[in-house]
């Protein structure tokens, strides 16, 4: 599937996402790759949200959802930083991955809700994409 670094619509955004799996007891290098994928998914979401926020001028669930999604993605990227680029074991890295997973679950729920507000059918495909 073609990757869109600057997705212009929901289908392109969906195509930009890479699926993340959180296996138990992943080695440091694997943890770094997981964090990179999460970081990528957050980055495309932030770009999409910022583009859309420039266009949306009416208060509503959509605008609020976009603002929340953007803030969550920014916070999640911050959490990824400590795990990216470290192939050596970090103190508390396993715990950080568990925290990242729970944060990512919340982020996924927000993405699903955002898609749900715009397109019910696409919202159903989120779980296979993220």
């Amino acid at each position, binding site marked *: 599937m073609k990757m869109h670094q600057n997705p212009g619509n929901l289908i392109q955004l969906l195509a930009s996402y890479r699926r993340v799996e959180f296996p138990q007891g992943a080695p440091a290098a694997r943890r770094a790759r997981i964090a990179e994928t999460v970081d990528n998914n957050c980055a495309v979401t932030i770009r999409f949200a910022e583009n859309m926020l420039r266009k949306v001028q*009416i*208060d509503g*669930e959509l605008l*609020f*959802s976009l603002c*929340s999604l953007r803030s969550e993605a920014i916070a999640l990227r911050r959490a990824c930083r400590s795990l990216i680029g470290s192939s050596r074991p970090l103190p508390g890295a396993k715990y950080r991955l568990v925290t990242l997973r729970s944060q990512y679950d919340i982020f996924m*729920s927000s993405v*699903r809700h955002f898609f749900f507000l715009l397109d019910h059918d696409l919202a*159903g495909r989120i779980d296979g994409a993220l």
Partner: protein
Amino acid sequence: MSKDVPSIDSAIRDLEELLRREQDNVKQVGQSMEKILEALERIKLSVGLASKAKRGNAGPLRYVGMTVIEAIETFLDTMGEPQSREAIVEDMIDGGAVLARMRPELEVHKSIDYWLLSEDEKRKKYRKRKIKILPPRLREHQDLTIGRASWPRQKHAAAS
């Protein structure tokens, strides 16, 4: 020689016959089109009547076509008093207000959260964006039940 070359009369007759046949065909096509259009009209009417009959105040399709907040307000009006989140979520899923297959309760909770927010809370979230903020349509009480923001004070006081 004269037998091989068709006369003008016969040629005209053939052409007349051909044109009549074509005219009949066109008439038949026209009649068929009319029948199809009538059938479509009947289908449209029956679908419209059926969906109205199916909706109503009860049944699994009572909130289909409404936004989540419209469905919540309808439910609260029907009950006449503030309801718990759980009751609202259950009724929204039961009435078809949420079409999400994965975690439909989440969609209802997010909608409730948004419509409970005050204008100041939203302005803080939007930062400096110059937009007209919508007023809250729901209100949460001390006992965590939720009512319509537009209800009279007495109704809210009874819950608080």
